[in-house]
């Protein structure tokens, strides 16, 4: 199960107008836990007005730098990223889970590979970690980065990348693509789409020389780049993806729980939404789980262990209350947010509204 550990913020550097870079130090006894692989991320948690939010941010340090560092770009309406950019200060403690994620390829010191990376905005964060690590641990390999931003002032780690370029002449190159500012070469202005990718491959990149590609950015950019890489002969197995979490809502919605008096003995009128389809049916208060009642109502709910262990049948209670017999899978904050394991839940109220779609 996940475990959070305290990290002390020892340094906070303002990277751009709306992005900060934090240097974090674990306690001595947690040091080994926070050893990371390039490209991994940390998941933080923090309480906002009684509501726990969890957010993941990629590590931007290389594995040989001996520090733990993450970049946090402020997202409009994002509670955690705004707080990190405006209120966080050195000396404060953050709680984080040990590094996770698979956005890396194994380091081979003898390798002589050509890596290609694509970053959109703050998608640069894990790529910086990967680039630094590869340049330091694979002396025979080289890296080409295509980095998309709106404008020059929003480019994160611009100086770090320049430094790397100067230190690793011939092994590291960056192509900046700016959406709003014209550059000398038209190719480097605009967005990275299918057309731009084709042009890049025509004039700047030799597709046949690429051993592996990394892509981190928003969804449309990931789709366009992946499709183009495939068209240029790079198989899916040699493309590594990291989708940054645009799907995360800024603030968890308040759960709607009606504290109705429990009418003893009576049944429950259940309303269940699954795959956008809502169905209402009556079910007993005892002796039948919500999952079994849903399946009996011909709704194809997902489940597997039926023992409260696997969390396949996780659903959200929107109205009414349920009681879970066993819960080995959901964490406290999920339960507080209204999530329940359908296989272990029975209704406590005469009306119950549940969704499997949230």
């Amino acid at each position, binding site marked *: 199960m996940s475990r959070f550990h305290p990290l002390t913020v020892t340094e906070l550097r303002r990277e751009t107008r709306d992005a900060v870079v934090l240097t974090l130090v674990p306690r001595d006894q947690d040091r080994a836990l926070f050893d990371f692989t390039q490209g991994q991320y940390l998941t933080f948690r923090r309480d906002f007005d009684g509501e726990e939010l969890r957010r993941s941010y990629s590590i931007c340090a290389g594995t040989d730098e001996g520090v733990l560092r993450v970049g946090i770009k402020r997202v409009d309406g994002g509670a955690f990223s705004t707080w990190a950019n405006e209120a966080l200060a050195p000396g404060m403690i953050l709680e984080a889970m040990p590094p996770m994620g698979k956005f890396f390829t194994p380091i081979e010191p003898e390798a002589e590979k050509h890596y290609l990376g694509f970053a959109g905005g703050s998608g640069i964060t894990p790529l910086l970690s990967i680039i630094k690590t590869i340049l330091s641990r694979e002396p025979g390999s080289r890296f080409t980065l295509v980095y998309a931003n709106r404008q020059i002032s929003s480019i994160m780690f611009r100086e770090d990348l320049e430094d790397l370029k100067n230190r690793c002449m011939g092994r590291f190159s960056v192509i900046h693509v700016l959406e709003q500012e014209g550059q000398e070469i038209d190719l480097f202005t605009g967005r990275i789409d299918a057309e731009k990718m084709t042009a890049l491959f025509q004039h700047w990149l030799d597709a046949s020389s690429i051993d592996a590609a990394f892509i981190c950015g928003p969804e449309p950019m990931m789709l366009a780049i992946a499709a183009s890489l495939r068209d240029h002969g790079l198989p899916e197995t040699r493309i590594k993806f990291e989708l940054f979490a645009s799907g995360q809502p800024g603030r968890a919605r308040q759960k709607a729980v009606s504290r109705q008096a429990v009418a003893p003995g009576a049944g429950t009128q259940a309303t269940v939404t699954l795959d956008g389809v809502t169905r209402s049916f009556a079910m007993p208060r005892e002796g039948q789980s919500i999952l079994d009642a849903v399946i009996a109502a011909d709704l194809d709910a997902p489940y*597997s262990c039926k023992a409260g262990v696997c969390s396949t049948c996780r659903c959200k209670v929107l109205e009414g209350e349920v009681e879970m017999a066993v819960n080995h899978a959901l964490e406290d904050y999920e339960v507080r947010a209204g999530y329940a394991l359908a296989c272990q839940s029975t209704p406590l109220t005469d009306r119950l509204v549940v969704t499997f779609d949230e």
Partner: protein
Amino acid sequence: MTDTMAIEDYLAQGGVLTAPDNAPARYRGELMRMMSTFVDSELAGSAGFAASINLAPGIKERIAASRITLEKADHAERVLEVMGSFGTDTGRYQSQHDWAARVARDADLGTARGAGDMRLSVFHYPLQGWTDAVVMNVAMGLATGVQLAELSRVSYAPLAEVFRAIAPREARHAELGLEGLQRIVATDAGRAEAQAALTYWQPRVAATFGVAGSARYDTLARFGLRHTPNESLLGRWQAALAETLGPLGLK
């Protein structure tokens, strides 16, 4: 480049998810279901094959059976680890069911599964003797090859990577089975026994591909969790089976 799109549209267009936080609720449920089907089937397959080690006629076969037993458990563990990243209590999960339990040999389960135990129905049937175990391993091994080729394209990248790593080792299991089967069919009696076993296992392995025109398939395809319909995968397996067993005089 901060423009985004609905995660459902992204998936429908072939997008890849990379962390549990990316996964929408329904996607998560279906993904978990696929993973537990795989984990439970591998654990049940491993448990079933364990007993065959002592039926092996020679050391070579004994080593092959041991390796299959070991590696199938290892494959279950790798996928269970991915489930763990979504909140599954992995310690409890593996002790939830009696993985060696089997139904009667002549029971008819069709494509049905036991409550809570998500192993494919074929893994509920008992093995009877060495030849039976070898034939089942070859038939199911070829099916696993077809199914893993499909699963290696799953839109949840960390899982697709696990399946890609597992696929060649599972293919080796089928090869080991085939080597054993070649020795068995060297005699007429052996071939007759193998044919009887094949007649028993063929429809049961076929059932693991699910029903044609499955409604769940459409949901899974929209999520990028599936790419080829059940009936096409079944056809691929039937072709592979004929190609592999035909030369041995089995059908």
